[in-house]
């Protein structure tokens, strides 16, 4: 089934935040933000903006009636800066005017006096100076430090991995309407309607029940609208509540790039020990996570980095430590993969380092150490239904990797200025929020008297097709045609206390809740149908809009049954509640079973590097992916393809750049490049691995949002391998591998 929004999308009729019809008395807001990364505010004079023709009001921290606090996990984030500026682009004031041109012009009239303080932008420097968001955390299994002597080979090294801008094409925004009795309705482009409801209540000193959040769909999010949609909604609400007018705040692309956080840049040091037969015996790793100025979701992201430190490998002795570093950058935040990619990149770098020292292909080490059934992951979870070896072997066979490698070696011998490189990227990614309490969801189903159905869940549609999957669950469970079903907007008055649509879990959690709700209604309908047809409820089937008894069509339609149910005053609505069973993590013991299941797969990537110009392209990307039993192969394949290209962009051309003083240099789409249509590999194949699906996955169809992004990491190693065919001395692990780094690396003098 195609995405149910397809028709609206291709005709331009789908409604996004900025498309909501504007009420006539609407005011428009623009944010005045910090011009420097770290400073003490001496004075703030907003009178120039206040008196600007067309300006209605200017709001600063002093105008906040409740708490000036929007920290989602830890209360360490102000809505508007008061005394100290902690990153460039930090909101200080909100200018509200008749239109956005005036608001933008007027904000330039605000005068800020400040005393500049030293800015930290580098995580290692932050760690050295003790600038941390939280004390360092460690996970361990066995005793790595005692193993080095027993290893045949020990190598150590360092890596750097850059951040990544989400670049959802729809920028952040919110549109708030005042309602009677001090209530507010907020439309927002957010993955977390409840977070917005909670934050607005806090900032305005209201109850959550007074705030209604409504979301129809997002024009992309990728994690960037999990925590960071909140400030704009709060600002619109602050102005709207105070002025009693609708207020719209939509960030321009430049404001969005400057004011919002990205994927966390990391630095890391590793040490890896191998046996003579290439078993990884021990691994020690220290990560320096660039958290930005406040916590945001950094600690949860750090946790996932630790959980994915070993990627797809079994390592008996391991110790991993992470420093979540506080720097003067915008708060770095969730991004597809949520710390997993950084953890996996370091692991793969360590393997690549060992391989280059041993002068063997990395795949020999990768293959030797893949997880097998029942292996213990170092955080305490025993893996079940492990498909990584199967994925790897299938890739090896179907993509004829041995032959491919030989072709590449021959090609490289013949061509002095063009080199190819092959890399394999296995992935093992845990599904569930690592914060166990978030693994819950609710769904509300109404069956109307004409037999049509309205479905509300806590899931946010952002292109991933969750609404299509919800519709499938409903249609399949109730045995009715999809055209009868409407997916409602996500609204906090219909479904309360939603978890963010994140962690790849949207379809699983909300789908299971919806399944429970549908089954509730179905059970009652079956009982009624049994009574009507003199049969047991267990003999009743509903399918194709018809009622069957023991497989025999009764002549009764779905519509008639619903009509009967209503006349008999039967409950035709149901709310379903789901909480993922069995998962837990003991924070004290640092052990547990945090994931409902894992997703597996293996990618093969082939690069071609022009060693004259330092440019490159990808000839082939072929993937064997574990979908479980996909409930929607079209949508799921689209998720894999999109994730891979985004992951390849992350390690190739997507280069975030900040000045030493903390100013974003890659501050526009002309300086921050994401993959375009020419960047797609010439051959791009995604094949499903034939496996059965786990019970915690919705209809045994595994979560698919995040895992494929990490196949993209292989692009780094494919380019690196090609470069080393030209310059065997190239030894860095510094992502992204831009054409600049490639050319400089190719011609770097080989150190003796």
């Amino acid at each position, binding site marked *: 089934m195609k*995405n149910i929004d*397809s*028709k609206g*999308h*291709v*005709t*331009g*009729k*789908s409604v*996004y935040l*900025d*498309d909501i019809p504007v009420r006539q008395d609407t005011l428009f807001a623009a944010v005045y933000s910090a011009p420097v990364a770290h400073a003490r505010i001496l004075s703030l004079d907003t009178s120039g903006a206040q008196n600007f023709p067309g300006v209605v009001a200017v709001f600063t921290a002093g105008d906040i009636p409740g708490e000036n606090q929007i920290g989602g996990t830890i209360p360490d984030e102000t809505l508007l800066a008061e005394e100290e500026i902690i990153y460039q682009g930090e909101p200080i004031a909100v200018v509200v005017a008749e239109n956005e041109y005036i608001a933008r*012009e007027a904000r330039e009239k605000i005068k800020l006096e400040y005393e500049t303080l030293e800015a930290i932008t580098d995580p290692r420097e932050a760690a050295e100076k003790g600038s941390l968001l939280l004390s360092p955390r460690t996970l361990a299994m066995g005793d790595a430090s005692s193993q080095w002597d027993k290893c045949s080979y020990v190598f150590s090294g360092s890596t750097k991995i850059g951040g990544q801008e*989400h670049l*959802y*094409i*729809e*920028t952040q925004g919110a549109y708030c309407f005042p309602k009677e009795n001090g209530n507010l309705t907020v439309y927002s482009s957010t993955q977390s309607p409840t977070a917005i409801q909670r934050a607005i209540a806090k900032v305005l000193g209201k109850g959550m029940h007074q705030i209604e959040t409504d979301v129809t*769909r*997002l*024009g*992309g999010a*990728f994690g960037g609208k999990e925590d960071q949609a909140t400030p704009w909604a709060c600002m619109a609400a602050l102005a709207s509540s105070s002025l009693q007018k609708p207020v719209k705040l939509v960030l*321009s*692309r430049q404001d969005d790039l400057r004011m919002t956080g990205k994927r966390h840049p990391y630095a890391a040091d590793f040490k890896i020990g191998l046996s003579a037969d290439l078993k990884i015996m021990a691994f020690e790793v220290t990560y320096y996570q660039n958290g930005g100025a406040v916590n945001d979701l950094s600690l949860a992201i750090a946790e996932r980095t630790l959980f994915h430190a070993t990627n797809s490998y079994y390592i008996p002795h391991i110790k991993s430590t992470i420093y979540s570093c506080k720097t003067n950058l915008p708060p770095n935040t969730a991004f597809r993969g949520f710390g997993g990619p950084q953890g996996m990149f370091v692991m793969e770098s360590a393997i690549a380092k060992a391989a280059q020292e041993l002068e063997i292909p990395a795949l020999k080490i990768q293959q030797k150490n893949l997880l097998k059934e029942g292996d213990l992951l170092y955080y305490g979870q025993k893996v079940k239904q492990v498909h990584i070896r199967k994925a790897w072997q299938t890739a090896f066979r179907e993509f004829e990797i041995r032959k491919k490698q030989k072709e590449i070696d021959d090609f490289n011998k013949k061509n*002095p*200025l*063009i080199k190819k490189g092959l890399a394999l990227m296995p992935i093992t990614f845990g599904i569930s929020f690592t914060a166990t309490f978030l693994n819950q969801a609710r769904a509300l189903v109404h069956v109307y008297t004409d037999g049509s159905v309205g479905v509300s869940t806590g899931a946010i549609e952002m*292109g991933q097709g969750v609404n299509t999957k919800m519709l499938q669950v409903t249609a399949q469970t109730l045995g009715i045609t999809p055209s009868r079903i409407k997916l409602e907007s996500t609204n906090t008055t219909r479904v309360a206390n939603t978890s963010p649509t994140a962690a790849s879990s949207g379809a699983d959690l909300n789908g299971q809740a919806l399944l429970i709700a549908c089954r509730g209604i179905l059970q009652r309908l079956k009982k009624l149908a049994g009574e009507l047809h003199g049969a047991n409820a267990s003999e009743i089937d509903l399918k194709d809009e018809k009622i069957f008894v023991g497989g025999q069509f009764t002549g009764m339609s779905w519509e008639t049954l619903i009509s009967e149910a209503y006349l008999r005053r039967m409950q035709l609505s149901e709310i379903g509640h789901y909480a993922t069973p069995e998962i837990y993590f003991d924070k004290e013991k640092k052990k547990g079973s945090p994931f409902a299941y894992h997703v597996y797969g293996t990618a093969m990537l082939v690069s071609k590097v022009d060693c*004259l*110009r*330092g440019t490159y*392209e990808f000839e082939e990307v072929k993937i064997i992916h574990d979908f479980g039993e996909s409930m929607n192969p079209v*949508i799921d*394949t*689209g998720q894999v*393809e*999109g994730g*891979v*290209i*985004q992951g390849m962009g992350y390690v190739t*051309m997507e280069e975030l*750049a900040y000045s030493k003083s903390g100013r974003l240099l890659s501050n*526009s789409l*002309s*300086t921050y490049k*994401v*993959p*375009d*249509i*020419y*960047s*797609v590999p010439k051959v*791009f194949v995604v094949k499903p691995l034939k496996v059965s699906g786990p019970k915690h996955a919705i209809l045994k169809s595994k979560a698919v949002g995040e895992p494929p992004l990490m196949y993209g990491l292989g692009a780094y190693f494919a380019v690196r391998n090609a470069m080393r065919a030209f310059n065997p001395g190239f030894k860095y692990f510094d992502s992204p591998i*831009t*054409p*600049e780094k490639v*050319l*400089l690396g190719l*011609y770097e003098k080989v150190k003796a």
Partner: protein
Amino acid sequence: MITFILNDQLVRTEEPAGSVLLDFIRYKARLMGTKAGCREGDCGACTVLEGHLENGEVRYKSIVSCLTPLGNVQGKHIVTIEGLQKDKMSPVQQAMIDHAATQCGFCTPGFVMSLTAHSLVPKKSTPEKVIDAISGNICRCTGYRSIKTAATDISRLLAQKEMDDPLGWLIKKAFLPEYFRNIAGRLKEIQATTPDANDGKIVGGGTDLFVQQPDALIKTSLQFSKAETNLQTIDIKDSFCRIGGAVTAEEIMKSDLLQHYFPRMKEDFRLISSEPIRNMGTVAGNIVNASPIADLVIFFLALDATVEIKHKSQPDSTIPLREFYIGYKKMKLHPGDLITAIRFPLPEKILFHFEKVSKRKHLDIASVNSALSIQMDGQVIKKIHLSAGGVYAWPFYAEKTVRFLTGKKLTEENIAEAAGILLSEIAPISDIRGNKTYKSLLLRQLFFAHFHELFPETFSAEVLYSKMLAV
């Protein structure tokens, strides 16, 4: 007063000529299908069709509405996604649905409009051309595979287009609605009305001006060089080529006249921005924007082009392009001066090569670009011109290198020595497009690449690798 046709509606508006079309479409006409993504022409979410009369017919192209001043749509037909079929899907829309080429959907109207623009191109569609047509559209969700498949399908269908009545065919096949038939006639009526008298800042395509200062331009008095038909021609006469100041990059790229002299022109120009931006940006705009990496300037510097300037109160003058720049974003031009054309000699036996490297191969600003033209007399370099962008405060003409090579034999030693001279006469700075070490190294490589491509036997990969690159 600006008059144009928006979809099937005649629009007369008093909105400022310097306000952008995107805002008019979304916030005045309330057509919300056209999306605002970046407002710098780099994402394509706001792509619309622009149709103009040419010899009695309407010619359509894709443009980005975020950088199009209203002044540039006077007398045009603008088509947004709402201007396509109302009741049924066009084959473009259907292909996007069939191949699941839409996820979040925010970029989708832009893709649909670019592909529809492609359907209106008079030449035959090919799988390569259809991809060029969507080269300015960024999608962050799909990874493009599905979009490519949809585009290829559309291209296959378009290959059957009946060339005697293409518009009729497109209407019959539901690419376009019926009202397109009457647009030519309706535009003729508007054309008859004279545009407002203009005096003010000169705007060409607006592709950089409206990135830099959109809010200020709303309040600025503007005149539009594209309104002047005498600036729009490409002529070749007496071994000289003259290109009008308002000619766009796409018009140069597609010029049959120039293809003959520059067989690689299409490949070269494919590296210059994207199709909609090439449809908008002008030669004069690229010159006066004075960016140190201006692609067209680099191209024409190596052809030793001359700039023709029309002054307000003095007689017209000319100046060699290589003497035109005097500092970063500074040039020999006075307020009110208008670049009417560039011209350059076109000897029959010219060898020409253009190189550009940027972080992303397409729709990106160069880290370094360079062009070289050369005329040989046997083994001896008779005449040579070399330009380089991104290595100096303005588009650089490598005078010392040129002087050294003129009259020299084409040997490894001479080219290697010339590379040394070249690197000594540039002054790159470290910035977002690369540090200066990189830019120097890259220019050396591109300099060698010119000879590698033009004289593949003398400067083969083996020769470069073993003798010149000193790995």
